[in-house]
């Protein structure tokens, strides 16, 4: 074995798992992250992680997990990787358990499991209601051990700006900017793995963290990496609307018995606790008797929109519904859901154990992402790999709850191995790549930064960001109409024009956050248009993508991956067949 150097971009679950695998295989890792990795967005995942361990004697199986996942994704996934993930899941839970994750336990000291959306089985392992935090910490600690042994170097506070591609188009390293000093530097590597998460910032009000801008994916797309199913955006049914962000209220709340309802009388202003049972409309339970409150997220979100916007039954006439746990035992709520109920308590000021929560859907997850192949998580750029939310493989048109932590870890495992295998086949390692390609990439990026700093325009980056977010939230989330999408794309193009006249109000190099944010903003605008154009293209309804003009799923024309390629500022879409070799697509309905 020839020891290689692998660069990891992103220190969330996928990035850390890949780091561990690469280091374990005896290769050196340089790990880049905009935040200290322990503060990555994976900490926000609340409810749990799926694995069909069948510890409750329900007859669950990894095949059933696979089937639920593919059905939940409305058959848009290439199936082999998904099957691999579901098969690996029980082993992944054991691994995390060995690493010290504080999973909830049964009386016998075994792992406890709970229900989640889109399945009828207790399949979700959990650590209170902060499972993502606990998982991230466990992996962070393993990486810290490797770091102490000198096998991993961390570059925290460095932002990826581009890949370094050689004359043959092979990825030979990355170009990154130091968030503190604004230094732009190139770093050579034999392989590069991106694990940069979702793109919630494109929608501005999202459940994502501020670092989830999608900038890296966008930069790579503009450098020639394919991007697949951009239109597949998950809107989570239950979040607390907020001025700075929407805070997630986990699906596990419903998994433990929480019920969604609105008063039957429009504009009913009574205290919810004084509204009698027979005057409450438990619309999810009524419409979907089998799955009830645990229908998949796309279904629940559309139902809430329907009850609010079509039936006019939002609480106080506003776009909110009740998520109610007041009927459940307090001790259980604290033990199993404490972390998430605390968020409501702190940010709204009411204890959900006594007061039904007021919630509404918010942008939550990016199913689409960088295109990767069917087995190695390799992008179309040789030497460039992707794992986690930033790629498109595992969730199709809709992700099931508690599958994201799993796909991040599984993807990290796959890519850790495949990327190092790739390095063994390299004839010339990155050391021998001509320094010219590094120099010219660095120069290109330095010029962009210099221009941003010195530019004297009349446009504020935050204003452009807000307007982009409003357009995306209004026209490109739950209900999509072609006329609106076309108009939105035009307005996004206008924002790109205005971006050219941007003014940072800060010309410093040191600690200039506007500078880096504005650099990312140009990439966000590209993604916004990509999502919008992808949505415009797909004339059907599938999973999270819903067009009232085309209300049915259309397998004949649209059982396809939309794969986009960047060409001189334009997007070229190609439709690829989906690998459905293991489960034949069938009609998706959660009614019975």
């Amino acid at each position, binding site marked *: 074995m020839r020891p290689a150097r692998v660069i990891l971009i992103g220190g969330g679950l996928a990035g850390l798992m890949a780091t561990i695998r690469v280091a374990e295989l005896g290769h050196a890792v340089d790990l880049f992250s905009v935040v200290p990795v322990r503060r990555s967005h994976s900490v926000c995942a609340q409810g749990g992680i799926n694995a069909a361990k069948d510890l409750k004697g329900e007859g669950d199986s990894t095949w059933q997990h696979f089937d639920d996942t593919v059905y939940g994704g409305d058959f848009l996934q290439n199936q082999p990787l998904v099957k691999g993930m579901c098969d690996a899941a029980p082993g992944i839970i054991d691994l995390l358990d060995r690493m010290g994750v504080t999973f909830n336990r049964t009386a016998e000291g075994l792992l406890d499991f709970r229900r989640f959306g889109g399945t009828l089985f207790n399949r979700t392992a959990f650590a209170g209601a902060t499972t993502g935090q606990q998982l991230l910490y466990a992996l962070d600690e393993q990486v810290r051990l490797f770091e102490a042994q000198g096998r991993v170097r961390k570059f925290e506070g460095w932002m990826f700006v581009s890949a370094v591609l050689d004359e043959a188009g092979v990825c030979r390293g990355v170009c990154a900017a130091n968030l503190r000093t604004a230094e732009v530097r190139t770093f050579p590597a034999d392989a590069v793995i991106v694990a940069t998460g979702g793109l919630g910032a494109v929608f501005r009000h999202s459940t994502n*963290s501020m670092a989830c801008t999608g900038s890296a994916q966008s930069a790579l797309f503009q450098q020639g990496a394919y991007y697949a199913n951009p239109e597949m955006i998950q809107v989570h049914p239950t979040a607390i609307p907020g*001025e700075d962000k929407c805070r997630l209220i986990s699906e596990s709340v419903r998994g433990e018995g929480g019920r969604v309802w609105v008063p039957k009388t429009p504009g009913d202003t009574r205290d919810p606790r004084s509204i009698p049972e027979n005057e409450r409309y438990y619309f999810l339970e009524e419409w979907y008797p089998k799955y009830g409150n645990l229908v998949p997220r796309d279904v629940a979100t559309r139902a809430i929109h329907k009850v609010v916007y079509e039936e006019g039954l939002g609480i106080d006439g506003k776009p909110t519904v009740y998520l109610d746990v007041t009927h459940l035992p307090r001790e259980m709520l604290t033990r199993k859901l404490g972390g998430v109920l605390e968020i409501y308590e702190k940010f709204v000021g009411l204890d959900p154990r006594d007061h039904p929560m007021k919630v509404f859907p918010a942008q939550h997850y990016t199913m689409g992402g960088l295109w990767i192949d069917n087995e190695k998580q390799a992008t179309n750029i040789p030497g460039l790999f992707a794992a986690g939310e930033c790629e498109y493989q595992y969730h199709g048109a809709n992700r099931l709850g508690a599958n994201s932590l799993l796909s991040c870890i599984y993807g990290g495992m796959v890519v850790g191995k495949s990327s190092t295998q790739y390095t063994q086949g390299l004839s010339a390692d990155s050391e021998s790549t001509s320094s010219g390609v590094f120099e010219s990439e660095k120069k290109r990026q330095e010029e962009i930064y210099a221009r941003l700093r010195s530019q004297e325009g009349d446009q504020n980056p935050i204003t452009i960001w807000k307007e982009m977010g409003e357009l995306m939230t209004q026209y490109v989330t739950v209900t999509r109409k072609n006329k609106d999408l076309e108009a939105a794309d035009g307005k996004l193009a206008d924002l790109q024009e205005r971006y050219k006249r941007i003014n940072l109000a800060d010309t410093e190099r040191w600690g200039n956050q506007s500078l880096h944010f504005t650099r990312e903003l140009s990439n966000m605008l590209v993604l916004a248009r990509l999502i919008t154009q992808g949505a415009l293209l797909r004339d059907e309804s599938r999973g999270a993508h819903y067009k009232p003009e085309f209300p049915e799923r259309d397998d004949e024309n649209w059982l396809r991956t939309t794969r986009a390629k960047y060409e001189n500022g334009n997007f070229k879409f190609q439709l690829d067949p989906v690998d459905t070799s293991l489960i034949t697509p069938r009609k998706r309905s959660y009614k019975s």
Partner: protein
Amino acid sequence: MAEGKTILIRIKRQAGPDQPARWEEFSLKWRPSMNVIACLIDIAENPVTTGGQKTTPVSYEANCLEEVCGACAMVINGRSRQACSALVDQLEQPIQIEPMSKFPLVRDLVVDRSKMFHNLKRMRCWVPVDGTYAIGPGPRIAPERQQVAYTLSRCIMCGNCLEVCPKVNEHSDFVGAAILNQVRLFNLHPTGAMHSHERLQAVRGIGGVQDCDNAQNCVKACPKSIPLTESNNDVNRQAIRDALIGWIFR
């Protein structure tokens, strides 16, 4: 609350570690459910002081905005806390914001807390595993013990407990309650406990548990209600016991 209301906010600005500090005041438009982060975003959109002076957007650290990543710790109205959960309607005005004082300043409200992560390394805060392959289940753990461990493991490394600790200062290397709490956590895990001796050895070293003066400020400042004084005392007892055992069986 009436619409059209304004928020007054004073922020301590400093362009860099060697630059002079100054205060700037901003007047912002009030909206429902605003927190300090929303104020900082507003300022970035219109960086003009109440005196009409153009200034730069304020530098600050933030990420998750739901008090689980630990990034946005700062001193608000004299209290070290997370800015995301500092709701404007619950704060006295003018809202006064300063960077944490116990960590090296970077710019404005950004400080460098990397020493906390470094100390996690020093104190060997991990459960070592043989490998990441499927080599069977983890140890069985009683639910009661899991509940204790889970409470400790919710620490977000915000550093508020260090900021309020009298023993964390330029004359001392005290690692602080957050780190000692992690030592307790890893010593509680069945596999982690196999390596407790090396952790306790580290804990008896420079800046270790003996530096704790039991001022108990830490536990009051913890946004996650972690029983930090209990952790300090527990680790102290463990460290003494470990030293005695080492001395007896030397």
